[in-house]
């Protein structure tokens, strides 16, 4: 089975972090149901699942006309009262019918998009990962972004963010194996979890151009693109679990933190600008970002190997740690220098 999604991550537009009680109000705007909150090791609040009905083309690398009908599953979340994410995904299966069925059929399968005719998994996976929403194709990123916009427009937020930052876009594609895998590389007929196919584990759906994807075990490949786009390719022989979505959101969150801190440090012009200016530019990072770094904190054990792979290369935490040390050292040195100038030392 093919699962694909897009996570957009940005700074909640408020002067400070918001308390847990406000997370409820801010995310509750999306629907009447309750917001789920977990408190350890970091406050994480997530909206109820949102469904968006779609009937449109899916991107394909070969530009084949692939029509998909179903629902997109989305949610918005706030981490540490400070970071906002919009996340959407679909599970792609082949339709058993050759025409569109009633909406009740699709609504009963939340997050499933059924495609008509024969499609090749690598073609869809590649098309989505490389191009996202080309030529009127399903645009999961903009669905995610809509939910973010709704949160950012909340009257509970003061819109006075401490610094400017770009939203990042993590587009992910997971090829999931599991019971019932046919190994043909095509999506087989079916609507549920048991009908998954197209896994690289069975050898048939090797993804062209992604040498690191091992046919035997789970595999992951993370790529930085332009315009804040990142792509993540996953192979999950064990099949799809909702934990995949959590993992992708967690990765997107930490990638945003790293991306944003890099910009803040670059702009501080360490060594060129005056000590006061450098400190002023770095201070928001200390106030709002440094404490949020907690990779894999909320994830299923099963995803630990993925994080370990990413920690080896590109080495997220290594780069983050070195940046954090640089920020702290700069602030310490600058404070000492300012004290000395003031005659205190």
């Amino acid at each position, binding site marked *: 089975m093919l699962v694909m999604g897009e996570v957009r991550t*940005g*700074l909640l*537009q408020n002067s400070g972090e918001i308390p847990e009680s406000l997370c409820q109000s801010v995310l509750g705007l999306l629907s009447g149901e309750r917001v789920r909150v977990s408190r350890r090791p970091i406050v994480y609040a997530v909206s109820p699942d949102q469904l968006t009905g779609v009937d449109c083309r899916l991107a394909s690398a070969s530009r084949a006309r692939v029509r998909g009908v179903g629902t997109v599953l989305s949610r918005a979340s706030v981490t540490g009262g400070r970071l906002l994410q919009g996340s959407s995904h679909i599970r792609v299966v082949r339709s058993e019918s050759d025409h569109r069925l009633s909406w009740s059929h699709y609504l009963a399968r939340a997050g499933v998009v059924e495609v008509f005719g024969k499609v090749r998994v690598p073609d869809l996976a590649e098309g989505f990962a490389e191009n996202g*929403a080309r030529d009127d194709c399903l*645009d999961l*990123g*903009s669905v995610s*972004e809509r939910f973010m*916009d709704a949160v*950012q*427009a909340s009257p509970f*937020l*003061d*819109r*006075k*963010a401490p610094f*400017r*930052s*770009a*939203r990042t876009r993590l587009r992910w594609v997971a090829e999931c194996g599991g019971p019932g895998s046919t190994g043909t590389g095509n999506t087989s007929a079916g609507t549920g979890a048991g009908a998954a196919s197209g896994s690289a584990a069975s050898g048939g759906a090797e993804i062209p151009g992604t040498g690191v994807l091992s046919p035997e075990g789970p595999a992951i490949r993370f790529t930085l693109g332009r*315009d804040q786009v990142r792509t993540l390719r996953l192979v999950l022989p064990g099949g799809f679990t909702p934990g995949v979505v959590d993992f992708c959101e967690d990765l997107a969150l930490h990638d945003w933190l790293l991306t944003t801190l890099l910009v803040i440090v670059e*702009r501080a*012009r360490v060594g*060129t*600008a005056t000590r006061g200016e450098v400190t002023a530019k770095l201070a928001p990072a200390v106030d709002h970002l440094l404490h949020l770094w907690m990779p894999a904190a909320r994830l299923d054990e099963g995803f630990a190997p993925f994080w370990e792979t990413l920690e080896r290369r590109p080495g997220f935490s290594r780069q983050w740690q070195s940046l954090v040390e640089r920020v702290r050292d700069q602030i310490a040195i600058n404070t000492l220098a300012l004290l000395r100038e003031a005659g205190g030392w």
Partner: protein
Amino acid sequence: MLVFAISDKGGTGRSVTGSNIVYRRALQGSDVCYLDFDFGSPTAGAIFSVSSAARGTAQGGMHRYLEGRLADPHRIDIWSESDREGLRTKPPGAGQMVLFPGDEGGGEFSTVSEEMLQRCVRLFARLEEEFDLCLVDLSAGRSFAAQMALAATARLPGVPFRWLVFHRWTRQHIIAADGLVRGQQGLLAVGVQHGHDEEALADHIRFVRTAVLEPDAAELEGLRETQKAWLNECDRELRELAGRHRVGRTSMLGKIPLDPVLQWREQLISDEDVLSSQIANAETVAAFDDLAKKIVDDSAWEAL
């Protein structure tokens, strides 16, 4: 902050001045973007030396975004995509500089629908997250684009905005600039229709004089005494006229001198153009620099 650039007459210098302000602000370290809302003639790409978007983009620009035909309007990172070599390296400490071009063959809107307005509101809110300064180049005169800007800002109470009204230093331009703000279907009147408070809106509007030739400018040195006296008299009259039309010094945010380079070509003026090749005047760059600071300086925007 959203900054709307407008003028009553065409060819005033709105786009060239607006682009240079954005450029100066980026050099000063802010993250800036330029939105081409001059749907009828989206030429900002040419000023930023992006030839692929010289007359708007073919990849989905502002016009198509507002029509709802795409979710992500085309964005051009000037520091990496400009054809001008001197612009292609971002100086250390400079902010982002992004152009959101118009569409090739877009055309003015003939109405603003509720959906279009919502898209505009969403766009402004998103860009405000990312950029310190978003300059929106509206077309000349009373356009639907200007109306949309007024309506959108009325719906975004948390997002600060300012208006710059560009005009040349002539009788006709001074009178027209006043009319655009305070006349029939002017900015204030339309703003009030969309829910703005008239006085508060007026406090967010300032005038910018473009291509000004001061009577004591070096360019005029060779003139006869009688000519100089006549010019001085004209200038005095204009100042008086401007005062009467409330376009005078107190409501002016800045003035840009007439520049030989800009007279020949619509472009960004780099420090290089002033220091090494010496084709542009240092006063012009100083005026852009000053304006770029004043736009965000609250003391320059205290109630009149």
